């Protein structure tokens, strides 16, 4: 290393350290506001256990669904040009731009239309568990799509072109050349969708309600505890959420990157 590179690297570390410290300080402040007793009480309450279960299951389902949609959509937007692409690109960003409550409200209204009611007559959605997943999916998927578009944009299309000159059709070029290269991007998109879904609150509050033991996810728990002045429990639940998310995200990245090492 050039000795003159040191100030530059130090500069990078300073920025990183400042931001990470801010985040850690927030968590430490949270932790100082609660106690292990509180966290234990929270963990043993059946309502919160239910919320943890629902949060993790629904977020994982949402992440998988998001990846299913984000990969083909990302590939389409990155590799193909078609009439109205600009408009579609804008529409795909709507869930990122809209206030979360509005998304919930829009879903609520959608499921009161004749079409929505037809769906409800088969599977009850509004204020039930499916609404949690739909609310999470409608937001999380937009983030996953954005991640996949960037991923495919960064992969040189020449690889697929070469594969096609060697006898692959477009589908094979996608599956054998583009997708394997995009593996980290797919993983990243999935993680992003998962984290986003886990923290989703606004649309769920409106579209699914905060019904204990039914549609209560961890952010709803925080909201409910805060609205009755139980800050200790709210903080305890937040810490549980942060810890669990940290473990899952680190583990996911480790596994995802691990395979690349081998």
């Amino acid at each position, binding site marked *: 290393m050039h000795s003159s590179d040191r100030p530059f690297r130090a500069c990078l570390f300073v920025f990183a350290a400042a931001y990470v410290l801010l985040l850690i300080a927030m968590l430490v402040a949270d932790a100082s506001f609660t106690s292990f007793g509180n966290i234990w009480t929270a963990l043993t309450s059946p309502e919160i256990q*239910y919320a943890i*279960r*629902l949060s993790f*299951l*629904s977020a*994982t*389902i949402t992440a*998988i*669904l998001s*990846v*299913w949609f984000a990969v083909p959509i990302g590939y389409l937007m990155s590799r193909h040009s078609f009439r109205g692409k600009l408009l579609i690109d804008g529409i795909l960003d709507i869930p990122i731009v809209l206030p979360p*409550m509005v998304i919930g*409200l829009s879903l*609520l*209204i959608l499921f*009161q239309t004749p079409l929505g009611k037809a769906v409800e007559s088969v599977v009850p959605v*509004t*204020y*039930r*568990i499916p609404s949690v997943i739909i609310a999470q999916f409608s937001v999380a998927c937009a983030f996953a799509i954005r991640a996949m578009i960037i991923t495919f944009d960064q992969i040189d299309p020449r690889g697929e072109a070469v594969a096609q000159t060697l006898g692959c059709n477009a*589908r*094979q070029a996608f*599956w*054998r050349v583009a997708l394997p290269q995009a593996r980290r991007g797919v993983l990243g998109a999935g993680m992003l969708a998962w984290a986003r879904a886990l923290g989703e609150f606004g649309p769920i*509050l*409106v579209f699914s*309600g*905060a*019904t*204990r*033991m*039914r*549609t209560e996810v961890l952010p709803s728990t925080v*909201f*409910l505890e*805060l*609205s*009755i*002045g139980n*800050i200790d429990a709210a903080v305890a639940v937040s810490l549980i959420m942060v810890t669990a998310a940290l473990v899952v995200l680190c583990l996911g990245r480790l596994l995802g990157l691990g395979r690349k090492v081998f």
Partner: protein
Amino acid sequence: MIGAAETSLLVGSALLLGLLVFFLVGSDRMPIGTSGKPISVYCAAGLQPPVAAAARAYQDQYGIAIDLTYGGSGTLLSQLSVARSGDLYIAADDSYIRSGREKGIVDEDLSLAWQVPVLAVARGNSKGISSLEDLLRDDISVGFAHPEAAAVGRIVRQVLIEAGLWEGVQARVKVFKPTVMDLANDLKIGTIDLAVIWDATAAQYPEIEGVRVQAFDAVRRPISLGVLSWSGQPAAAFHFARYLAARDKGLPHFAKRGYTVADGDRWEETPELLLMSGAMLSKAIDETVAEFEQREGVRVTRIYNGCGILVSQMKSGSRPDAYFACDQSFLDQVSERFESGQTVSANSMVILVAKDNPKKISGLADLARPGLRVGLGHPEKSALGSLTVTLLERGGHLAALKASGNLVVESATGDYLVNQARAGALDAAIVYRSNTAMVGDHLDTVEIGDANAHAVQPYAVARDSTHKQLMGRLLDAIAGQRSQKRFEGLGFDWKCKLPEMSGR
């Protein structure tokens, strides 16, 4: 063809998805140990502790599940109006219930408790906060509820404007927050010294105490529960609603948490109520009362009779929960037993004659003509009779009528007179217009043309009734539009200045 790796990716993720969904299925079920359809309650998040505790007790006692969905009062109201589902709605402030009534979302409401704004400070009140003027102190940082977002902000702003303090306070407020809970949390964390919030909110925090000031006590607000108009199981919903609003069931859960509770009804699984009503009103109210029984899941025993008879029954020990009198004069005779009456309708008096008026009776004076058979209401037993006597006396016709010997019958009810006339036993009778609604094809009426020729019907709830709220809701039903049509269809004049009945 898709290659093996691709297939395994697709199938693998699909299997994982299926497995996760499998784990979730079964979560969406009824709580164990409950039967029947659950009652779905939308509840302001801040009211969670008392409502959840009462719901648990109810569930234990009756095995009926209560589904509680929490949120901000306003958010819930918006949700409700879109989704049109649920049975009950509990708002943190009565204004939301009123707004729900206006929008046709809420049909009935039950009072639960009161809340009063207080000056909330950290326990110990180390800065010695005691009056509104303390809001202007330089060493105090004040948090205020947003007047547009929170009811307490709006109400207190009005108080401060009237006290001439608002300008100064507004300039000094450190932060405006959308809800009182946000402010209480700020106080607890210590970012502000003083916040104006509800007494019940302050009572939820051991770290906070509320300082009462007189100016705020005058603007206390009711907390009430609304029954949603689209509830598919109103009787079941009312069962829980009455439980929650009962002074010996749900309300103690509120009192325990610092709320000033409403004057709730006594709990009875199926309340049996006694309504005494003037006979003239039977046709007008009977269907409405029957519908009320059905919707509320209660039993209302109706005693219809001449009002004089009803009054003497009450004087000899009958204790109705409410009295719907034929005329104000009869309610006045037992006024010490009842809360002030609400005038519902008026009924004008007419002279009933045979079809096409063969005896050519044109007014009260004609009743004394020789050879007529006249029927009147009994002056002691019925309002009709007593009003008739007053009317005849004032017009100077009473003595002549008595002297003529035409008066052949005095009856406790107008309907009896109508039947007599219908049978041809009377040539003329003074009755209410509503008595004649069914016999228009066979008999004619002659207008009396006197401003005093009418009775006014007030409804009043007994002071000692253990179901004042319930009887108040019966009045709401009687004052409703459908009931109005029934009254008017029978010839009554509508006198109800409603439908603003809340805040009892």
